[in-house]
């Protein structure tokens, strides 16, 4: 059966992703836009993610060892170069919410020995916890370092009774030795897609949001379906002249501020960031 499958679908098996219009006929391709000018660095998204996705609180000692488990982290930079140019950060801090970029050509995917991480039909970079053997190759190969490994057996001690009652039953509690990462709140997407499918329709724009996008007080995070050309996210991508299947964008318009981080590594991320703005006259 597998051989006939191989022969029948040879063309599609040899197709290299991403390619132009690959999601043209697909119902969903999840993507995000994060407006860095709106992001105020308030950490609401971070805590929301802890609440939604059963992230373990690791405590001071382990945080200090670099074993924190935040799927989305707010990075705060003081400058773009290698030194702060002025004595004071005159233009404020530079906040960057960094989460899994759900790359179309994710460097983490091909290196996993067991295929615990792979690309889902709706364009997500998945992580199947129970398949993971913990080689940590994906994390080694992730240029954004947004994969988090369970160095300890958190189910044992991160949720002393009754804290465990808060755990989201739709999300697995990861035990020691597996890699975990942002899933774009896959449990919400799945529930929404199931509902929509039963109703015989596609998800409407904004019907399902990730926890971070839902919480964000400034609405800096826009989440949606890129395959739907009319969704807000798709229009924003187009408006910002970012094309999913390109690793160098042609920016013909002035003042377009969308970009993808470390695009030159050919990762084709699904998150577009909008440049931070500053009134330099002030």
């Amino acid at each position: 059966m597998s051989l006939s499958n191989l022969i029948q679908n040879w063309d599609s098996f040899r197709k290299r992703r991403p390619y132009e219009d690959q999601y043209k006929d697909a119902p969903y391709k999840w993507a995000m836009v994060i407006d860095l000018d709106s992001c105020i660095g308030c950490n609401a998204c971070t805590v929301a993610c802890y609440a939604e996705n059963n992230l373990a609180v690791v405590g001071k000692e382990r945080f200090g060892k670099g074993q924190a488990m935040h799927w989305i982290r707010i990075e705060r930079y003081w400058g773009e170069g290698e030194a702060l140019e002025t004595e004071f950060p005159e233009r404020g801090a530079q906040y960057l919410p960094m989460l899994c970029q759900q790359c179309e050509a994710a460097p983490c995917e091909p290196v996993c020995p067991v295929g615990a991480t792979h690309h889902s039909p709706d364009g997500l970079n998945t992580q199947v916890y129970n398949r993971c053997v913990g080689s940590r190759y994906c994390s080694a190969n992730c240029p954004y370092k947004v994969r988090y490994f369970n160095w300890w057996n958190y189910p044992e001690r991160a949720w002393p009774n009754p804290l465990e009652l808060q755990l989201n039953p739709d999300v697995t509690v990861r035990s020691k030795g597996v890699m975990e990462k942002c899933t774009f709140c896959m449990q919400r997407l799945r529930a929404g897609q199931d509902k929509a499918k039963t109703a015989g329709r596609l998800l409407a724009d904004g019907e399902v949001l990730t926890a971070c996008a839902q919480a964000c007080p400034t609405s800096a995070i826009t989440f949606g379906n890129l395959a739907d050309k009319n969704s807000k996210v798709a229009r924003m991508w187009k408006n910002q002249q970012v094309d999913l299947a390109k690793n160098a964008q042609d920016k013909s318009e002035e003042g377009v501020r969308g970009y993808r981080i470390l695009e030159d590594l050919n990762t084709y991320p699904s998150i577009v960031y909008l440049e931070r703005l500053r009134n330099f006259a002030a």
Partner: protein
Amino acid sequence: MSTGNMDRRDFLRVLGISGAAATLAGCGHTSIESGVEEVMSYVQPQDFVVPGIGVFYSSTCTQCGSGCGIMGKVREGRVLKLEGNPESGISGGKICGLGQAGVQAHYNPDRLHTPMMNIEGGLVPISWERANQLLDEHFGTKSSLQGEQIAFLTGGVSGHQRVVLENFLESFGSTQHVCYDAISTATGRAASKTVLGAEQPLWNFSKARLILSFGSDFLGNGVSPVYMAREFAKFRKAPRGTLIQIEPRMTLTGGNADRWYPIKPGTEGILALGIAHDLLQHPEFSGKVPQEVLDLVKNYDRDAVSEVTGIGADAVRLIAAQLWNNTPSLVVAGPAVEGHAYGFSNAAAVQLLNVILGNRGNSLEGQSEHPFPQMTPTLGSYRALAELHKKMVSGNCQALLIHGTNPVFTSPTHLEFSEAMKKVPFKVALVTHIDETAGQCDLVLPLLSAMEDFGTHIAEYQPSGVELMLQQPLMEKLYPETKGFGDILLDVLKKRKPQEYAVFPDYYSYLKAAVLKAKPVFHSDEPDEHFWETALMNGVVKWEGKPTDLEAKMVPLEVPEPHGLTTDYPFYFVPSIRPDMRDGRHAYLPWLQESPETMTTVVWDSWVEIHPKTAAQMQIKEGDVLLLQSATGSIQAKAYIFPGIQPDTVSMPLGQGHTQMGRYASGVGANPYKILDPIFDAHTGELALHATRVAIRKTGENQKVVKDEGPTNLQNGQKLVATLSADQAKLAREI
């Protein structure tokens, strides 16, 4: 209790359905054997309850006083997550990190679950019968307490809790509802009242073209952070407004400023007058400004101001020019301005700019009238605590009830509050977990958490009209021995005033009756039950109101220079307020402890922020344990090199250093309240939080600073956060 409520309670019961209770098993080896896990179903649930599907219940966030409407996702009887309630005009469907952590306050493993009594210096669990007996002894009909002998010390309370509380006091003939807030805004409110005619005017970000903020962290921990953040995001859309922030230590808001200026602490008022001086040069003002004001402003020319404040003369000119060119603007003042010996004058001088610039009626308006003055939030102040303290010391206070505040932790050393507490014969704490203050009480009563109790709330900052926020249980109570705040007071009231209160079996029915009584105010002609159900469903009842006019006037106020630095104490000490920790009441929430403080990314700790230049001069490296010595006392914390601070200033976050607040708070960091000098605002008598001067000594020890940031906080040429000049962006064209 109605039958409807009975169903509801049944639904809120925690069920062990579909692995809910066994979620902890994780992705390792979980049991899939038949007959190991239990699966249950409700006895008589409401029809919309479907196992496996979350139902959202509206409620109100009580983590801070902003009164955000929230929704709790409830499944199998457990509240899982909080979201913003779109019905609420304040939260608008959004929520902050602090609010999210509300579920952890509810499920906290260190929750108090039985009444406790102080026996021979230690708290021991007792039964409710014993607790009631004690309450009866002191507050029952036979109680000899009356009048001012009994005091109720709270943090901010509003809504019907406040009404019940004051009725409770009133039944003794007492008016001693003392409201204490360690991060008091009383000075600023007083200044605002004096100059603008309103303690808390409405800030119309949408109308402002420029915001000039003097140390106001309205995005992080102001009067209504979520609402402000939402408004600020709109402010940043086309046409994009500009934010200029002037403060000694960069706050979250400062981090978002288009231009950030470090200023010597306490000289903000002088800078404001300097800007006013510049502004009043414009011919448009001739003849329109009172002579006193002109006289006052006269001395504050750019160079003089520059020398005192440390802000360059050019910058003063530039700020003034920006204000002039971008009208309407909005000038706001924050704790950094108020916390000085002349904080009132400082703040008033800053508000004066609003008057000069004519922001009144544009970006500044008055909040609408209030239909329920008895339910407005009580706003804490330090002076109230100091006065109570006087009574306690003098022995006039015979019984003290404490709720929602932790003065033993947050009051400065010189007040010696815990000594004073020993003079009060009967102290009752109504808490959800034992903190430092409750630890010193004679009776500690376990309260229901905010996710288990009914209540109503009214926020201090009402963006439009007035919203009566409803709080309702999202799940059945975790601990059978806990009791609602309203219920406890109502029980006492029922004994003291049976004719008025006996009709209410519990606080829920009292609340329902009270809200229904207010139905005419909301111009509703719906049937009672329907009105009530709708109110609960929406979580909010809105009273339409219009913004009022402000009576602003140009009040000339002398702004003296703050007392300078001495060789003994060569640094300004600025305690910073973390958006998630506030005065320390949230330190027991692990999510917040683990959430990196935005500016420094430090977690689970206290630290001393020092400017790199100063640090280099003193040869201080990150992690050096420093001894901060003020005239009052000393504490130790690790150094953190921080460029966003005025070089003569050191800063330390408030909220850590708990000794008795459960496993997540105890022993973390140090408590800066304990080194604050006894300096008070001359006008309001508030403790001046930012007026302490300190000396720094290296202890020779170096410890790792636990933070998210790596060895670099620069982008090293990678395009991570790119910055574009605002005039190049085409925001209007964006989606």
